[in-house]
């Protein structure tokens, strides 16, 4: 294609010092529409070119602030509103733990967003063509040369004068850059079918390869050797046994070692209360053991002192106080039965606490009840 319109005159320099000197000279000569291209950011250049301050910093600031606010909002909403979870006893909104994530999102949004806004706003996306593209000048300045370019729409532009000016400040390879108006207005290379199809096919190929690697290749030999072992998986079906289950049930009537059956069903608490007698004595050892187990297993709901106003308050329904007259008048067997079989929301603890430990807790609960309703003779 033949290019007709003169865009600019360009010249090359070899060192950053020369280009800074050239920038000063251009300003002195009174040219306004000029640009400088360097392979890397050269410090002090914007001052020599007398450029106004770039507004990109404000974009970065706004985007960064948005990132910080979004990250904090998201964590606040998920962690303390929508799905509050007790994590290590920390508050639902625990700022110190959120700061690293907030920092990451701030940096991510600020950096990526600034690049995108630079491309969209300043490079006028999707227009990605420029007269300087595909020229020898651009090839030189994007490798190791420093280029100056004075545009033809400058009010002082005069081709001969500009060329003389270039040679006076020591530039070499002084070339004129021509372009075509249609090129800018009609040809949006980024929307060309060839480019779009190329982009889509890269996406398909990449995701296809990823799918093949992660979902197919990993299950072929030899990668699958760790998975295919000569044993039955716990939940898998099998043809080895007639019923198809790979897990076997113990023989009918099997009892674990040390297991003692608890004779009272969950709803027969009166029977248990009348028949069970605490085999343990009120010794310091028993009470201390009972306290330790109580603090671990009971205190999350019942509170350390049995009031029912415990630290899980709000996440579970509050249990009634252990100091009510009703609870104090229960026999030991009643409390033991509730610990063993559970009651209402309270689960059964017979799997987690041994028989002896349950009786020790009963002793400790008794001591707690006594402490709040001490009689005169206890003081002696």
């Amino acid at each position, binding site marked *: 294609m033949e290019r007709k319109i003169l865009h600019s005159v360009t010249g090359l320099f070899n060192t950053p010092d020369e280009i800074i000197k050239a920038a000063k000279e251009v300003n002195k000569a009174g040219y306004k529409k000029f640009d400088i291209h360097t392979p890397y950011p050269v*410090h*002090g250049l914007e001052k020599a070119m007398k450029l106004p301050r770039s507004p990109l910093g404000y974009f970065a600031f706004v985007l960064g602030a948005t990132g910080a606010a979004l990250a904090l909002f998201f964590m606040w909403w998920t962690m303390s509103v929508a799905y509050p979870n007790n994590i*290590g006893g920390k508050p639902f909104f625990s700022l*110190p733990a959120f*700061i*690293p994530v907030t920092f990451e999102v701030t940096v991510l949004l600020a950096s990526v967003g600034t690049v995108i806004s630079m491309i969209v706003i300043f490079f006028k996306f999707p227009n990605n063509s420029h007269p300087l593209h595909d020229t020898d000048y651009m090839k030189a300045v994007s490798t190791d040369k420093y280029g100056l370019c004075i545009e033809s729409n400058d009010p002082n532009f005069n081709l001969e004068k500009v060329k003389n000016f270039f040679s006076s400040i020591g530039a070499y390879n002084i070339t004129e850059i021509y372009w075509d108006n249609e090129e800018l207005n009609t040809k949006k290379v980024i929307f060309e079918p060839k480019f779009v199809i190329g982009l889509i096919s890269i996406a398909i190929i990449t995701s296809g390869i990823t799918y093949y690697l992660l979902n197919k290749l990993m299950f072929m030999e030899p990668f699958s050797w760790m998975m295919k072992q000569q044993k039955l998986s716990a939940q898998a079906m099998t043809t080895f046994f007639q019923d198809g289950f790979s897990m076997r049930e113990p023989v009918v009537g099997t009892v674990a070692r040390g297991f003692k059956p608890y004779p009272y069903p969950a709803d027969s608490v009166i029977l248990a209360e009348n028949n069970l007698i605490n085999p343990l004595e009120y010794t310091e050892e028993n009470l201390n053991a009972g306290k330790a187990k109580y603090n671990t297993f009971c205190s999350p709901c019942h509170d350390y002192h049995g009031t029912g106003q415990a630290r899980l308050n709000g996440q579970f329904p509050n249990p009634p106080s252990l100091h009510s007259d009703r609870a104090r008048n229960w026999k030991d067997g009643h409390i033991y039965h509730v610990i063993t079989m559970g009651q209402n929301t309270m689960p059964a603890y017979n799997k987690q606490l041994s028989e002896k430990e349950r009786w020790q807790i009963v002793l400790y609960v008794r001591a707690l009840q006594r402490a709040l309703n001490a009689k005169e003779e206890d003081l002696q």
Partner: protein
Amino acid sequence: MSQDNLVLYEKKELPGKLTIIGLAILILGIILTVLAFSTDTLRASYNLILTLTWIYGIGLGALFLVALEYIVGADWSVPFRRVTEIVATLIFVVPILSIPLLLNLDTVFVWLNPELLKADKYIAGKVPYLNQDFFVIRTIAIFIIMFIFYYLLVGRSFKQDKTKNPNINRLSVKLSALFMPIFAICITVISIDWLMSLEPKWFSTIFGVYYFAGSVLAALSLITFISILLAENGYLSKFLTEDHYYNFGALMFAFTNFWAYIAFSQFMLIWYANIPDETLWYMTRGNEGWFAVSIGLIIVKFAIPYLALVTRPSKSNQFRLKIIAVWVFLAHYYDLYWIVMPEYTRKTAEHTPVYSWFELSVPILVIGLIWVVFTFVGKNKNLMPIGDPKFRKGLEFHL
């Protein structure tokens, strides 16, 4: 600077008046310190620890910056290296400061209290490290090691002014490489011994880095302030440009962020793990009176310097840099106060921040010491390393 016979630096002696003012401040500081010791030995001892770690941090930080320049081959800092080297001389003051403390270690360090050792098996388990003999040996060994490196790095550079021998730089680079790991160990030991062991039960593996970050920041701010002050009054070369100062601003900015990063990492890990042995240090600083001081530390040492240095012009504007340098320098005092004094109020069971002439004697003494040492050492010396082969390159530096 094309002519070869150009005078890069003209020696101009520091006025004698300066030494007299410095001496006056120093004497005031010494009088206040002696008075403090005779009134309340315990409180004065804590304040002397603060003085010692402040001064030693600056001295070691300056020595570190000298070594850093050699090791990375920096050009821009060569014109300021002499100022840094003179500041590094402060390490010679520290042994004198430490004498009153080393003579009665048991006033401040609770790990020397036999009753406590009997009562607390955790602290008793640390006795192989935390005992008087080993403590004194460590401290003196570090003093001597640092003196040797001072002589090797700084002393040889002083001599270079006369001999103009360009070859000594090559050895200095190698010595700096040797210096770095030794310095890292020494400054960690200093921070553990003098600051962390004030609360012997507490430990934080990042504490040495925390002290290092703060100390280098303090040294950097002091060197920035002195360099700009000297340059403005014509004691340095007239070829210094904004680009030189820009690096000071950038480094201060970097170390401010580094300090904040380390301080936050230390806090967050301890807060998250929530182990009583570790949280107790922050609990002391989080109770009613000290909580405001702790929040203030974030603002004084991080937020304000960060916002002051974040824009580009404020890194190269000499006037702004000077103010920020003073701020950062005093912010390090705030930081050390926050580390040391809560331990004092815990010991006296006051649990609220204390500040009176006892504490005010610290900055007076420190400023007096820096002033006197700088004017005394700098008086007969060139204030720029004219013998360095990179001196001219350093002056011609631009970004």
